[in-house]
């Protein structure tokens, strides 16, 4: 085992690349395909070097057609391969929706387990990078509402590696949501000595606290961490839970935290109405009702189409909005 001094700052994009690289090196059935993933290494350079190292048959620039990409991946999986598909941006995964919903999600079930779909669909998602329209959607609600899919999203460099390794190893289809604005986030991390890979389906307490729980994931995790720091000034000791896996949902970790703190705020970038927060708030309330001092509140993107770059800062849930919600947690009713 190498020592901590070997660790150098690595970006989330590099960790994702490394996860694919290591998986491809270990398992010849792992294939990467998508638009510009080969020669270019992807528009975010997440597949950089894979075509060179493994050849174009293992990391393939496809024609420009998302349903075709995912549909051929289904066929490849039928023949025993493990395709890792890159969708170039969130909104450009929509053309593949029918393939995802009607085939990828259902194949195992409709064949009574005879035909697994070990496909990873990597989707760079969310805003905050100044992208023009259709480049910043948070589409997780669509995937969460689809039985048969697993939905995973990392918030740290370590998790990016670990979760993607797990997703590729998983025999179920995984929609792997990559927070675009964290691609360049860094951590001291050694690709030679990655942290042990955690199985999909476990949330993690990123910051322990006692006053209230922030339930969040992906791009909103750093926002919540910052909010928790800022909240100390107000006298609140906030716990931050990074869900990591939206499906399956880790009721245990989440409910344990909320039962302890008695208050919770769900924070995400996706539109609030019909978004993941509704499910999360509802199931926490169902399970922890008598522990709750206040309703579970939600801080989310507004219920509007994603705004243009110059206005996105007003849309994205930031520290202040999180703190506002925390303030509305009916502290006056304190036990």
């Amino acid at each position, binding site marked *: 085992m190498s020592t901590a001094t070997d660790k150098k700052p690595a970006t989330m994009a590099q960790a994702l690349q490394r996860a694919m690289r290591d998986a491809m090196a270990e398992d010849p059935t792992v294939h990467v395909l998508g638009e510009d993933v080969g020669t270019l290494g992807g528009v975010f350079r997440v597949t950089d070097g894979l075509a060179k190292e493994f*050849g*174009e*048959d293992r990391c*393939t620039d*496809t*024609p420009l*057609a998302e*349903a*075709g990409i*995912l*549909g*051929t*991946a*289904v*066929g*490849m*999986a*039928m*023949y*025993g*391969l493990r*395709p890792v598909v890159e969708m170039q941006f969130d909104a450009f995964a929509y*053309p593949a929706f*029918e*393939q995802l919903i*009607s*085939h990828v999600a*259902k*194949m*195992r*079930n*409709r*064949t*009574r*387990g*005879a*035909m*697994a779909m070990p496909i990873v669909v990597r989707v760079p998602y969310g805003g905050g990078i100044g992208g023009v329209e259709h480049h910043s959607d948070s589409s997780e609600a669509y995937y969460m509402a689809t*039985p*048969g899919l*697993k939905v995973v999203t990392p918030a740290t460099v370590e998790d990016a590696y670990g979760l993607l390794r797990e997703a590729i190893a*998983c*025999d*179920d289809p995984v929609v792997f949501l990559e927070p675009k604005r964290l691609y360049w986030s860094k951590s001291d991390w050694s690709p030679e000595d990655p942290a042990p890979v955690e199985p999909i*389906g476990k949330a993690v307490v990123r910051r322990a606290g006692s006053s209230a729980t922030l339930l969040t994931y992906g791009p909103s995790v750093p926002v919540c961490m910052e909010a928790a720091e800022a909240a100390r000034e107000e006298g609140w000791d906030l716990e931050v839970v990074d869900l990591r896996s939206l499906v*399956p*949902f880790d*009721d*245990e970790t989440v409910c344990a935290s909320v039962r302890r703190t008695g208050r919770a705020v769900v924070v995400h970038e996706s539109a609030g109405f019909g978004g993941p927060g509704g499910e999360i708030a509802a199931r926490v309330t169902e399970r922890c009702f008598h522990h709750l001092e206040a309703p579970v509140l939600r801080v989310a993107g507004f219920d509007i189409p994603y705004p243009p770059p110059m206005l996105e800062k007003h849309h994205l849930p930031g520290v202040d909005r999180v703190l506002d919600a925390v303030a509305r947690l009916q502290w006056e009713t304190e036990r």
Partner: protein
Amino acid sequence: MTVQELPGAAAYRPTPPPAWRPRTDPTPLLPDPEPFRVLGTGAELDRALMLKLYAELVRGRRFNAQATALTKQGRLAVYPSSTGQEACEVAAALALEERDWLFPSYRDTLAAVARGLDPVQALTLLRGDWHTGYDPREHRIAPLCTPLATQLPHAVGLAHAARLKGDDVVALALVGDGGTSEGDFHEALNFAAVWQAPVVFLVQNNGFAISVPLAKQTAAPSLAHKAVGYGMPGRLVDGNDAPAVHQVLSEAVGRARRGGGPTLVEAVTYRMEAHTNADDATRYRGSAEVDAWREHDPIRLLEGELTARGLIDEDGIRAAAEAAETMAAALREQMNAEPTLNPMDLFAEVYTAQSGQLREQADQLRAELEAEAR
């Protein structure tokens, strides 16, 4: 040499005009103006193959009739009959080797059965007791596909994967005339041609997509002409001439197997029955048209020619009919048996392992069932 580097793939690079030329000559890709036919042309016939085709056609026709009857008895939820299209269904099955894959649409139960799949397994979807009634890998038959044209990219992906692995496996994908309008048709054919995947696309042009006639579906000279836009050969065949369909498909499958890439085959045929038992075809077509096609019936055509050539006699015809009756009787009996279903299977294969959430729901259903049983 990787697949991506094979000729036909990444090599071509356009140059500035005036030197610029189309990448290839389109002429060899264009289908002949007349659908390819064997029957009535005096071509030599392989007797064993012809008798096999004939027996399967007769069996297939009987199968269609029996399945439609089963819908009336409530034994099938629905049945989209391929009566009139048996030549395509049977030839598709027989053109493949065992290691090859068939990608049927929802109308192609018969092709699966002609390939050897147990009829009850093949009818599971339409019976309503589970979705896919067989293990696709065991039979190399993809699930009967309801969302139109969506199985075409699967066929391409599978064929591509087989080729990458070095296996000489071919995928044959079936689609209707209506299905050619879907985006997935386009994307599948394009991927197949770019990757030179060993896949054959068979369009059964039966004149209708439910009530919508071909004229409202396309303005193309023929559906086979779409091939040129993907850079693959298009072939037209008389879809009611079983030896012709078999020959065209066999050639295309052989070419694909030898690394020659994909082919688009259009079989001109006709759906003699309504879209399904739930449809009323008199709402959108007249009997004169149906009658004209009845004259061009695939069984009649083959039987006539075999008889005329002395390749079959009355005994042979009777034997085929009797074999079909036996099959139908067995099918009736099997389908009359009440299927045994376990409601708990609902939760069994949603994921590899059951999540806590699904376990809770399974427990709920189990409790309900137990309460009911009490």
